[in-house]
């Protein structure tokens, strides 16, 4: 089957919002998330013709976003190198997140996500935001067993919970964001 840009747009539309939410959760700020999304979309365009089963588009696209995120982390780790690969011009992608407008609980969640390592972060975001199954996450993270993903998710949840409690406590004491106390207890 010959695939065109229109096919890609049709397949992307139902998952567009969750893909953007996922991408936003992965990166520290809106600008980085936009860059990551741009790279992921370019990657999807380049490899779209090799997608065999259209029903697996969602996990395929989320895999591309995840790989792009891992690559960007690798680039950050090697930022002290003398020679860096030339980056492509990112201006062509329209602004999707706008000004970093995350606020309230979303902002706290993003702050708490920062305390997780990249695998825990992607696993929990794929599960909570992407709605992917454990098996799909296992494939994306190239793990041998689903139980590895389960324990990763459980670890990530615990860390996230503790981080949120810590941040909320600080914010509450500072009289910043008002958060319902029932969630803190």
């Amino acid at each position, binding site marked *: 089957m010959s695939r065109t840009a229109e096919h890609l747009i049709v397949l992307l539309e139902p998952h*567009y919002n969750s893909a953007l939410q996922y991408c*936003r959760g992965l990166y520290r700020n809106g600008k980085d998330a936009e860059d990551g999304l741009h790279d992921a979309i370019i990657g999807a365009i380049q490899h779209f013709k090799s997608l065999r089963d259209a029903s697996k588009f969602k996990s395929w696209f989320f895999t591309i976003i995840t790989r792009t995120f891992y690559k960007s982390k690798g680039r950050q780790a090697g930022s002290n190198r003398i020679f860096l690969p030339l980056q492509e011009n990112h201006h062509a992608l329209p602004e999707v997140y706008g000004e970093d407008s995350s606020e309230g609980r979303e902002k*706290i969640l993003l702050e708490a996500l920062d305390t997780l390592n990249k695998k825990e972060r992607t696993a929990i975001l794929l599960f909570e935001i992407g709605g992917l199954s454990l098996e799909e996450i296992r494939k994306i993270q190239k793990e041998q067993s689903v139980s590895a993903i389960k324990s990763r998710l459980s670890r990530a949840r615990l860390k996230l919970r503790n981080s*949120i409690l810590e941040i909320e406590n600080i914010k509450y004491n500072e009289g910043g964001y008002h958060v319902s106390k029932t969630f803190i207890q």
Partner: protein
Amino acid sequence: MLARLLYNEIDPLTDPYWNDMRNRDHSKSFSAVSDFIRQNAHRMKRPGKRRKHITWALVILLPLLIFYSCTKQTYIEPQKATLSFTANDSILSTLDLTIHQFADKNWRAMLHPHAGSMYGTISAPSESFAQLKAFAEKLKSMQGVTELYLSAVSTTVEESRLSRLSYKIFNRHVDAKESTAEQLRTAIEKKLLEADLQNLKLELTKANGGTALRLVPNEKTRDFSINFTLPDGTTVTAVAEKW
């Protein structure tokens, strides 16, 4: 959602935070992103094109590589160096000290005292040739050393690049084909005759699984220099000086 509830995966603390993120609507930008995809549609790659290129490159390059690595080449490999000298018996202790100064564990030194003088032979691997030469220079400066012969032996080896590479990586030993003593004698005597050095006496002795050759000059032929290749590919360079 039901599955998540059943597996107790909804955390009452964190779920409202997740819900806030899930409820964030980004779909307004979809039309702009769609236009971006249309503009970049030319970037779509044909599936398997890269694999085809790699396959073709392998089909062409592999036979070339095999041919290149398996074609036999001729290399000259230095094998060992020998230093022979004659000295007065009286300088034995000085000589011994000098040998200990220069020698390393791969050197083989033999000293034969005979009727007030001493005949010595030192064999060293080709890597120590420079060191052996330095030792010969030192001997030249010593009083009591009467004769000095320094010779280097190298072998012509015919082998493929692949074999040579494996030799370099794994330090595999390559044995050159050895000639019989008679073949050697005939070949050397012919070379000596060609070089007008027929007065040199040739001694061939079997040692360490190989054949060692020694050219002994008589009274008339004291200084000589000869370089020849034996039938088995061994190149012999012999220089003798008297001072």
